[in-house]
């Protein structure tokens, strides 16, 4: 659905500083149809710039973007038929009514006039805004405005929806609704390209992710593959009932144990062995007189994985 070919965007550093920023450094990426693709990265990594180049809002310094096979720079109006975009910070036309706003964009996307009223009502229903249909936008809550923004992005029924930090500023309930909505849209066959700082949310809904830092994609793939790649060494946590036993020293001398880090009566460490070897290790530990009260395999979360990749712990 999305194809980035050597996509590069170079900016000047602010005046007074010499050099350039590479907001996107020769990005190559292919996002298949029907994916929910998450782009993760810190502020200034180049996520928004990449999204804007995908939507044709910024011209790349070099490289190409195609959406559904259409070159975004060469055929911008045709490309817009295939994508809907929601920016991170956006405003709506406060003086318009909810239905008027959607009607405006339906016409601007050149939908067939006869189908527009029906489509507007359908999107309003979809976004749970029926009760606000004839209200001015200025009276909507933040969450409602966000839903209306997504409604605008899907009004012309594009196969690709590009969302920049759509959960920013939403309360937990609105975030849950947003995730449900995105899953529904994906189930209907839409491809969703999304950036978010709330990694737990991305982990829940994304099928694939890319981790971006300093303009480069440092990890790309199906979510489970990226996680699996990073978890070649399992993290184990052992908890003792009392701190008298020198657990950290004992573990440090055992085969397969890496970097044990103690915190009170708890020690966390990397373990290269399999489950049977772990069972043997625990048996020996108990045999050595350690008052073991808990053994836990730490599950890698996207958030932890991201922070480990960013810090260089996982390369």
């Amino acid at each position, binding site marked *: 659905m999305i194809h980035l070919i050597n996509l590069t965007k170079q900016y000047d550093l602010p005046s007074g500083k*010499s050099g350039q920023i590479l907001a996107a450094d020769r990005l190559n990426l292919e996002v298949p149809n029907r994916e929910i693709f998450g782009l993760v990265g810190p502020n200034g990594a180049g996520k928004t710039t990449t999204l804007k180049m995908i939507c044709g809002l910024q011209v790349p310094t070099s490289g190409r973007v195609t959406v559904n096979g259409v070159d975004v720079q060469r055929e911008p109006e045709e490309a817009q038929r295939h994508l809907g975009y929601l920016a991170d910070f956006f405003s709506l036309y406060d003086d318009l009514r909810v239905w008027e706003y959607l009607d405006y964009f339906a016409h601007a996307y050149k939908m067939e006039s006869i189908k527009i009223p029906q489509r507007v009502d359908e999107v309003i229903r979809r976004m749970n805004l029926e009760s606000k249909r004839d209200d001015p936008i200025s009276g909507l809550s933040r969450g409602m405005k966000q839903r209306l923004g997504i409604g605008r992005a899907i009004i012309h029924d594009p196969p690709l929806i590009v969302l920049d930090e759509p959960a920013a500023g939403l309360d937990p309930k609105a975030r849950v609704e947003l995730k449900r909505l995105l899953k529904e849209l994906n189930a209907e066959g839409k491809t969703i390209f999304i950036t978010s700082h709330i990694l737990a949310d991305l982990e829940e809904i994304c099928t694939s992710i890319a981790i971006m830092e300093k303009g480069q994609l440092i990890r790309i793939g199906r979510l489970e593959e990226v996680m699996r790649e990073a978890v070649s060494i399992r993290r184990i946590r052992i908890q003792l009932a009392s701190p008298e036993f020198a657990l950290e020293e004992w573990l440090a001398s055992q085969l397969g144990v890496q970097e044990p880090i103690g915190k009170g009566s708890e020690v966390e460490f990397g373990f290269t062995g399999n489950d049977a070897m772990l069972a043997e290790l625990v048996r020996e530990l108990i045999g050595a007189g350690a008052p073991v009260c808990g053994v836990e395999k730490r599950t890698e979360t996207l958030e932890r994985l991201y922070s480990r990749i960013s810090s260089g712990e996982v390369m």
Partner: protein
Amino acid sequence: MKFFNNPEFVRNARIQLRKGRVFSAIVVCSALSGTIWASIVHADVDFSIGSLRRAGAVFAFTLCMQIAILLIGGGIYVVQSVHREMEQNTFDFQRVTRLSALELACGKLFGSPVGAYFVTLCFMPLSLVGAIRGHVPARLVAEAYVILLLGSIAFHSLALLISVIEGRGAGPVGILVYLFAVVITLVPPAIWAVRQVSPFVAVELVDHDSNVFTLKDEFFGFGVSHFLVLIALYFAFTAWFLLPVVRNIKRDPSLYQIYSGLQALGFALFMSLLQIGFYPWKAVFFQGIISVRLAEVSATVRHDALPTLPVEQFHLLCSMIVMAVMTLALLRSREVVRIRVQSLGKLALSVWAAAWPAPYVVVGVTLVGGSVAILISHYRYPDEFWSWPLVAYDVGYVVAWLTRDVLFVQCMNLRRVRRPLRSAVLYVVIFYGCTATLFSALDIYAYARNAALTAFLVPSPLYALSPSNWSTAKAIWILALVAQSIEACFFWWLHRQRLKEFQEEAPKRLIAKELQTASA
């Protein structure tokens, strides 16, 4: 897409013409109309305008008010139309729709001032009653409104262009520039044989004695109806202002370039055509007795033809201003150069690329200078001094000097500072300010030879170049031209070095050929 179905027009109409607002506008306009009628028709003051009385004055006053509402009020809305959307972060959503640039531009051009159009319409009853009761001919009324409508569209096109290019954070600058344009056109150009071009000229029609067809301008010595001139100018300027709007409105703002090279040259030549076309050549070079009528007094006076050189130099100065504005519209930004270096590779560093946009200046000044020279040689008083080599020198000098400054500004525009163009122009202004002050203080211009020497740096002595100065210091003048050319070459070389820096700054980037391979 039908005009009234334009989504941007409809959006603006929905916002500005809500029932409440429409009702308020009708009530306020009705109250004002009643007040105006009563205060003019029943007042003891003599409101006569030409042969019209009272009711005709109501028409004239209402027309003037309608022009002000549409031209100034509507224009301010248009100036804000794109600029405000950029500030509110809604403009990107319009850019990603499937509306073509022309549809979006037209939607904003007619949609943003739709409220002003409505208020103008609200005053139509008063205007028409005034016209009927004042026995203003229907044709005059129609002509006045044609001028009002087409003039407003032309000015709104300018407002839209200002809105597109002013960018974020410009505040009220755009509005001030627009109001300046409105005010400056109120003044009839004194040197040229053309009347006021502002739509406010429509108010003059109210005078029975002069309808638009009796108001004449002179174009290349031929009398042309001012009404037709206005219509042609309004259409032409609407097209020239809409062209860059359509070219840029859906673009990445960091890559805005007002015109392409040829379009900019076309616009500059169009402006020069107006400049030399409306110049009163016959009157300027007439020598003999003319009769003058001032109020009720008639007299005959002797008119001496102007010397040819000042006329030629005046036109070169005008042409220089037009071409300088043209080059400002053509300058390449760092972002544009960076993309060119990436996509074109070494072609972006070629001799031709480093000369940008000087070739357009050379062509423009040469064409205008040549045309002016031909016209002067045709119209001049036979006894006046005329020298083709001197004229050729003048044109060549202006070409070299303008090329030098243009290449300097283009080179400076590629510096990595916050507002490179602004600082480049500031440097130019400081340079000319300092040299002018210094040369004046040293009284250098008083001596022909010394004045010629200053032409190595500044062009001001060119405008006092007389046949005697020329013959006194011919060699120095020619050396000055050579010096200007060398300075231009120096800035061309600097520009090229700057371009090379872009390539060096991006050693990892792929050049066009590699890109094609990668995409294949």
